[in-house]
């Protein structure tokens, strides 16, 4: 037992010595100091942390190839400017000039290396002139000009199938396609016409009619949004903002007259709010060019001037 206690005592004091001898080095490393055994002095240093996607890029520090590949950390760098170049076969190289400060880290951790030959895959079939990606359902909707028809496929272009024909009388060029929130209807529009097709033909009976076209001969359509109920459309033209049911027999309800070609729209479908920029008359009777918020289905359709007078030009 005595012998074991001696060994234990030795181990204990060895541990104490190891702790106190190692601690300055651990702490100096952690804090960014480098110990110079020649001068017995600690020098302040900095470090560079590099992470790339994809990994494994060669690192050149001031044109000198480093041993490590990304992800890597270059430790104990004296403060100053360094050039970093990252190279990976078949990818564009990446280069940057960085300034290393004492006891600090330069984080180059969001570097993406782009391939020289990107992987491109053709996923449509035929003469597609517009498409809409529904990420939630992993579908892509297409409008084929030569066949005047809508098609759908999965995200890889597989399972390509006909959905519906483009209604007769709709003119090109088409501006945009938009799917209703319930994913059952698609609207498409040009400057003067709005068209709606039903993505499940059997459902068309529910509305009592086939694909329809709404014409705006005297107005220029700037944008159209689906209301959250998937039945109403918010149509923004150069003259007004109107709401219309997806039905050609119903007249639109004019919500706001626009004094300028409205621009910069954002439709918040969760709250059915339209944000737009226009010239509108304020409570003081003066007009202001501002960003406005239009509550579409509130009890009172209120036009809210969300930038207060005085904050910008009249």
């Amino acid at each position, binding site marked *: 037992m005595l012998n074991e206690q001696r060994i234990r005592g030795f181990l204990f004091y060895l541990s104490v010595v190891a702790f106190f001898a190692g601690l300055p080095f651990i702490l100096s490393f*952690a*804090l960014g100091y480098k110990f110079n055994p020649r001068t017995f002095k600690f020098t302040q240093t900095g470090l560079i942390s590099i992470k790339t996607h994809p990994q494994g890029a060669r690192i050149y520090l001031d044109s000198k190839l480093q041993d490590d590949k990304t992800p890597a950390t270059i430790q104990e760098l004296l403060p100053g400017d360094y050039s970093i170049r990252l190279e990976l076969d078949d990818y564009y190289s990446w280069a940057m000039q960085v300034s290393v400060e004492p006891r600090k880290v330069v984080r180059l951790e969001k570097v993406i290396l782009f391939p020289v030959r990107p992987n491109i895959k053709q996923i449509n079939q035929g003469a597609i002139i517009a498409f809409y990606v529904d990420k939630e359902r992993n579908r892509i909707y297409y409008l084929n000009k030569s066949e005047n028809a809508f098609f759908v496929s999965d995200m890889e272009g597989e399972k390509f199938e006909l959905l519906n024909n483009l209604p007769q009388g709709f003119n090109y060029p088409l501006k945009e396609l938009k799917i209703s929130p319930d994913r059952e209807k698609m609207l498409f529009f040009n400057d003067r016409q709005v068209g709606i097709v039903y993505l499940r033909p059997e459902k068309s009976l529910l509305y009592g009619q086939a694909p329809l076209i709404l014409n705006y001969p005297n107005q220029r359509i700037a944008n159209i949004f689906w209301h959250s109920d998937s039945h109403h459309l918010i149509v923004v033209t150069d003259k007004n903002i109107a709401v219309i049911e997806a039905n050609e027999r119903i007249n639109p309800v004019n919500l706001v007259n626009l004094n300028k070609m409205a621009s910069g729209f954002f439709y918040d479908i969760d709250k059915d709010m339209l944000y737009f920029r226009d010239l509108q008359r304020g409570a003081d009777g003066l007009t202001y060019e501002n960003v406005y918020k239009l509550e579409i289905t509130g009890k009172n359709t209120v036009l809210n001037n969300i930038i207060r007078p005085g904050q910008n030009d009249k």
Partner: protein
Amino acid sequence: MINNIFRKRTLEIIPGLTSWGIIFTLVLLAFIHPVACAVIIIVFDFYWIIRTIYLTTLLLMAHNKLYRERSKDWLGICPENNLYHLIVFPVYNEGLDILRPSLDALKNCNYPKEKLIVTLAFEERNPQAGDHARALESEFGKIFGGYVSTFHPDGLPGEKRTKGANATWAAKKAKEFLNSRGIEDENVIISCFDADTCVDKEYFGCLTYHFIKSPSPHRSSYQPMPVYNNNIWQAPSFARLVEISSSFCQMIESMRLEKFVTFSSHSMSFKTLVGIDYWPVDMVSDDSVIYWKAFLFYKGDYRVVPLYTTVSMDVAYADNFFKTIKMQYKQKRRWAWGVENFPFLMNGFLNDKDIPLIKKIRRGFHLLESHVTWAIWAVILVVIGPLPIIFGGVFFNQMAIGFNLSKITGLLFNFTLFTSIVWIVLSRIILPPRPKDVSWLKNIVMIMEWFLVPFIILILGSTPALDAQTHMAFGKYMEFNPTAKSKKVV
């Protein structure tokens, strides 16, 4: 009187206040000065690595010694003697399935049975106590040199419902029995065993040998290595790991003699026990406080002699995972309640003028340090470690230390993983043979289960100790809450 109460409460508050003080200071630093907090964490991480290496080396030494000595024919090398062994089993509500194997182990041990006097110490309030006593007496009563069943009355003045109260009652009754047979106290070694304790065949030979060879046999306690092999193959991974770790901690402690304190089942001179007026009847941690009582009584001239032989107990587990966690938590909290030894010891030191001051400081500091470390280490490593990175903001994350902190912490965990391999190997050696009804696949499970260690550290690392210290600091004292043991869950 008021001064005494003030002193007692102050001493009771110190461990909890120290632990919470360290934790709060570090959390506060993580917000207001993350660099300082990170420096402290790195120092602690490095300390923990060094400590882990040191303790794992001690474990290897203890393990080696255990396997050299456990199968020795101790009885064969024992000088002739007239020593008797009094074995007390304090029973709370353990059933015959627990008690019978413990007595079987005594029956099968390699020691003259006429030298063994067995006392089954039942609680009178347990309605099954009488039936159990009669059943065991008819089965084992004639095997040993003496067999006594005692029934500890409930609610004696000054007593709490603790194991110590029951053991004290039983020891007093046993003393009457021994004296009636003309056996002197100084010729008796008492072993106070948990009800599920199964001794190794050579236990009493080993104990007798060390008692005789000790330079001061009456000023020593004798501590075997506790293992939890009784039901280890049946126990769930979580509980098994915790108990293996407990065994290893005791083995490590056995190499640090200046800190070694009695734990769980152990033995001592009966004369000493009588001299120090038995176990405290109002304290939960009777197994360790008896050592401190003797230490104070003999003015610091008292020690624990490690016995490199095993006593095997049951792994505490229940019939589902969450109940097992709860049971293990309660057991660890009861062990952590050993922090009540600190005010007991300090109070003893303050009333004593003979123990050298340096010894008082060393022992007091060791005791406080061990409980405080127990309460904070997992919190620092697991909870506080990432705080500077989370709350340090942009400034801290631009600093070299902000970058290196996670690397050094990662290094610590990798290192802990490496030491875990040593522990896995040792745990395999300490295992009893696999029962025939247990699949060999369990061998793989028992290795893979070590991946649960971080999870166990999180739940059972520091929380029970913090819980116990906080309760004591607020004067909310624990009653003895025995761990329900079972050989097999049905």
